[in-house]
């Protein structure tokens, strides 16, 4: 399973990552960070759809997203 981590204290809630994700799995959460920005999130339930393409991270002006990719074949071996 590929996965991302959004640094919620860095996120400014611009939602450019939401638009950039080809799988449309990132959403606006209902949480606010310490600076008062409503942060983006990838709900745990959608994480297995993530391909690790890093489009979200490339687009993020605040470099708030870290991406790990797991090769598909490897993932299948582990199933």
């Amino acid at each position: 399973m590929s996965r991302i981590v959004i640094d919620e204290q860095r996120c400014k809630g611009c939602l450019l990552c939401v638009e950039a994700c080809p799988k449309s799995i990132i959403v606006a959460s209902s949480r606010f960070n310490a600076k008062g920005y409503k942060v983006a999130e990838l709900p745990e339930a959608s994480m297995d759809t993530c391909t690790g393409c890093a489009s979200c991270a490339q687009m993020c002006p605040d470099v708030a997203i870290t991406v790990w990719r797991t090769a598909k074949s490897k993932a299948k071996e582990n199933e």
Partner: protein
Amino acid sequence: MSEQLVFTRPEVLADVATHYCPGCQHGVVHRIVAECLEEFGLVEKTIAVSSIGCSVFLYNYILVDTVEAPHGRAPAVATGVKRARKDAFVFAYQGDGDLASIGMAEIMHAANRGERISVIFVNNTVYGMTGGQMAPTTMVGQKTTTCPAGRCMEREGGPIHMSEIIATLGGVAYCARTAVNTIKNIAQTKRAIRRAFETQINGEGFGFVEVLATCPTNWRMSSVAANERVGKEMIPEFPLGVFKDAAKEEQP
């Protein structure tokens, strides 16, 4: 399960929150510049020249030695730095108000002299830092605080196309315009900045990359709408592409 880290912050990009507004693409351009510096192994030998505009605090984010130039003078300061320290890698980072308005003379002459420097020019069609006044790059019809009814061709003339002008100057080795509104264009921006840096590393001449970017705050748009405007309105006015590449011209 073997997972691979495929995207993380470059080390030379400070791990701090920026002062930029939500959705401001100065952050994307900083990140790409930081990645290119690392990939070419330039971090230790780089001297950056920052300008006046929202990116004035570049030195807080890209952790290299930096000289802060007076408004518009970054190419002149970079000229001095490079001539005094030929071994250093020198890049200037300027906005459109800084470069195409008050700094028009400096950029033209530095480019024409073929200074071995690289200029990253972030065009967001407005004076961002000072609250959204009209810039030389403001588009016809675009509303700003100093042209509240929209820029008028009759009164203020049309937007200046810097890349097209710079490409005509003799000392220029590489000149391109890119954007960071899509993943494809972000990749293109990175290739262009790499090539501009390469021209300096190889001593080929002056390198210039204009990056179309958003200023959601002064465009009075959401970040997403501002990003869409880049594709719908800016790119048709400011076409993307490589306007000069000396290396390619040599091979007929």
